[in-house]
């Protein structure tokens, strides 16, 4: 479509600049004797990091945690994406929104909410279970690897959903029909046709969730640490917090193992999806995604999806609202209800820093996600349609900042930005956000690109369409579900971004997540929950807006059979 080598080179320069700068600073820091990035050369930090006797146990916990979270998020996303995009289930629009609610909630708050529900001492659900079944044993101890996987999987569900749903909605049902005409059973069709065609999206989702949970800190610190379960991110925290002189060079040395794992996963993904032609479902021969009528199964499935959505996603949000109305955390009781008031909400809405944070975060969410999505369209095009060694390099570069544990990458950006005039400005936050979360735009767009046959753009070019005309009139309209998914993922992430913000934000450039962290550090859970719910409300508005605009411009109209 474009002059491909020039486009690839330009993108490598842009993405490389965005993501390499902080990583290079961290690499320098990992070889520096001092606490800053430039100091006397040493390899002692690597020796110290990788000869730690606890490291093997931590790696095992990390593998179980990340793979478990990826399985949980991807399987749940497959189920929800299937019923939401391919069936005539009633109230689908509500379930679509519910599926992506966890990404709008600050992770620390979602984790704290699950602690209130499932802690073994007085968790609300555990107490309910104990009184119903007259037992002294808790139903579920959230302070366990299982608990960590449950919560992390739910937090990452929207990532998986927003990658799988566009691929599912673009699925050509005639492939399944052909299989059935040839005598295959429903199960054989599912395993031999449906899932293999969706393989790029499923793998993309699993890989992104693994990488994200590798970098996750909220769940491992709020749920893992009380259960004495350490994974890579909390191991890094333990290393930097033991002593007042936190050594981020050592943290970077440990974090490099996460980076290595992420890059390996990307190459495995490219290998497994190498023959991209196998996954094309939108070509010039005509395309008609169809809805499957559930008939008798409609209402039982509605009940199942409703219960799942309520328990897993809505209940924690209800708990947040409950906490926001209380002067301090306490289990539900007559006294608790008598103490309820709007005081926390009033405090938040009167607080000038909270209001400034709201304004800054909204700006970063809308502008950052828009710029990030535009860049992601070009990067995804190169990654999927060109597939050279250079495009593989571009894909790896896009994951660089994203793969580092969050508590480390922010310092890498600080070491970089402090040498520029942008230090302490909103622009630095904007650049940092886009550089770090570029995979949120690239993954859903790549999944969408993979399904569009190149004959479509070739036809446009043969008919005299310029590259930009072809992009605007042919490719982008077919990509709308992917663009909407990418934009939503980025905007929601930018609204609640913490790891970079906590290092780069300064007075005047405060953002919502930093204000939330302050409330958390001060133990003001009521105000924290109120601000969290305001954040969910704003994110929901942005998601609805994006979905409505997406539907208006989309060329993929699902038809009822």
């Amino acid at each position, binding site marked *: 479509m474009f002059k491909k080598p020039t486009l690839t080179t330009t993108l490598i320069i842009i993405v490389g600049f965005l993501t390499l700068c902080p990583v290079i600073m961290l690499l320098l820091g990992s070889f520096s004797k*001092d606490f800053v990035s430039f100091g006397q050369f040493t390899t002692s930090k690597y020796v110290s990091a990788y000869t730690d006797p606890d490291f093997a146990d931590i790696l095992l916990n990390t593998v179980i945690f990340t793979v478990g979270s990826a399985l949980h998020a991807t399987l749940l996303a497959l189920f929800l994406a299937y019923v939401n995009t391919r069936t005539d289930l009633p109230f689908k629009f509500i379930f679509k929104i519910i599926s992506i609610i966890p990404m709008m909630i600050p992770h620390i708050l979602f984790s704290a909410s699950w602690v209130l529900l499932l802690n073994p001492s007085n968790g609300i659900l555990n107490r309910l279970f104990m009184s119903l079944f007259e037992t002294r044993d808790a139903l579920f101890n959230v302070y366990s690897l299982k608990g960590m996987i449950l919560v992390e999987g739910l937090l990452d569900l929207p990532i998986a959903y927003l990658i799988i749903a566009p691929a599912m909605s673009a699925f050509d049902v005639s492939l399944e029909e052909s299989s059935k005409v040839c005598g295959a059973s429903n199960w054989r069709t599912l395993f031999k046709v449906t899932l293999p065609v969706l393989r790029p999206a499923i793998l993309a989702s699993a890989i992104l969730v693994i990488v994200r949970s590798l970098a996750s800190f909220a769940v491992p610190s*709020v749920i893992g*640490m009380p259960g004495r379960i350490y994974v890579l991110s909390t191991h890094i925290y333990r290393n930097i917090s033991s002593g007042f002189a936190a050594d*981020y060079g050592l943290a970077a040395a440990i974090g490099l193992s996460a980076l290595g794992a992420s890059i390996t996963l990307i190459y495995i993904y490219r290998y497994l999806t190498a023959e991209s032609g196998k996954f094309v479902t939108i070509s010039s021969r005509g395309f008609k995604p169809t809805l499957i009528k559930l008939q008798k199964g409609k209402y039982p499935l509605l009940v199942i999806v409703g219960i799942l959505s309520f328990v897993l996603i809505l209940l924690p949000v209800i708990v947040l609202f409950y906490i926001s109305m209380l002067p301090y955390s306490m289990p539900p009781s007559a006294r608790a209800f008598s103490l309820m008031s709007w005081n926390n909400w009033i405090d938040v809405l009167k607080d000038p820093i909270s209001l400034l944070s709201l304004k800054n975060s909204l700006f970063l969410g809308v502008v950052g996600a828009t710029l990030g999505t535009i860049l992601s369209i070009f990067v995804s095009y190169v990654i999927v349609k060109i597939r050279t060694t250079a495009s593989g390099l571009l894909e790896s570069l896009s994951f660089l900042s994203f793969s580092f544990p969050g508590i480390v990458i922010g310092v890498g950006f*600080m070491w970089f930005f402090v040498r520029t005039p942008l230090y*302490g400005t909103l622009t630095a936050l904007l650049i940092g956000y886009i550089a770090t979360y570029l995979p949120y735009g690239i993954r859903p767009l790549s999944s969408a690109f993979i399904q569009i046959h190149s004959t479509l753009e070739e036809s446009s070019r043969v008919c005299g369409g310029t590259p930009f005309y072809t992009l605007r009139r042919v490719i982008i309209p077919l990509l709308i579900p992917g663009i909407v998914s990418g934009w939503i993922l980025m905007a929601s992430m930018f609204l609640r971004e913490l790891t970079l913000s906590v290092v780069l934000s300064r007075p005047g450039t405060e953002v919502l997540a930093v204000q939330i962290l302050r409330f958390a550090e*001060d133990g003001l859970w009521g105000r924290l929950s109120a601000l969290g719910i305001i954040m969910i409300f704003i994110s929901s508005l942005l998601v609805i807006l994006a979905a409505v605009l997406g539907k208006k411009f989309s060329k993929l109209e699902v038809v009822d059979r």
Partner: protein
Amino acid sequence: MKKMVVLLLGLILLPGLLSTALAADKVNLYANITAIEPIMADFNAGQSAQEGIYTRISTSKYLATVLTEFSAGKLQADVLQGPLPILQMLKEKGVLTPYKSSSASGYPDWATGDDTIIQFGIEYVAPIYNKELVKPEDVPKTYMDLTDPKWYDKLVMPDPASHATTISWLIGLKEAKIFGDDAGWMKFVKGLAANKPMFVKSFGPSPAPIESGEKLIGISMPKYIITKAPAPLDWARVDTLLGTTRAMALAAKAPNPNGGKAFIDYWLSAQAMQLLADKVGEYVLTPGVFPPIDGVDKVKVIPIRQLSDEEIRHWGDEFQKIFYQ
């Protein structure tokens, strides 16, 4: 094209130029201290014509942030406040400059002996409990009472393998001879570990499980009785409390050095310290000023010796062996 380049350069440089221009009448405090908005508001309402700005940086990122900014010539702080060991490291690196404030004249000699760093408070640690769920007769009277098996699975504390202040506090109990000799101290540490306390990453999250009733008692800070009111928290009346000291100093290359001095003078004054005690529950060194927490004016509060990072890591490893068995 030239116009575009000028415009772009302007957009990039403008934030830096603006911040330099605005720095003249603003005083920037780098710290990590809870709920000090009333004190900043009081300073801003005063006669100094300076506007105080509070840049909050978590303790784990404090040194990295300040040294990075300092080495790049971008340190915005006029006044730096934090745990004493951090300020001592900053002094060694040349980040701080000497300043003696007349406001600290009544402070203890150990707090004002240094020409650069002034200590103004103690981050005191105590057993904190849920007064609605713990019967008065069950409230611990000594630290050793925390080792009673009745507290098994009912305790919360910051991770003693990694949290620097908790490690320093445990060593402080040993050095203050709270249990007589080292054997008595070790009996306490092992008894505490045997009760399987739940670990959180720092003192910040420690009161939440106590107020919600998830745990009944914990190693935490009495100041939360003020900042978390009306949560049903109280402190166990042990006879000695220990804590690391809070300190402050003037930055060597302060953008607004006179403003910085005015801020330190104000912060160390009885007026500001009274606010810090009343609104934040902090234990301050101004004579006669105490937080409005029952019994704190009578208890002995002593500063802990500042452990080096090597000592903290060594003891963290030792506590990991004991508490993670």
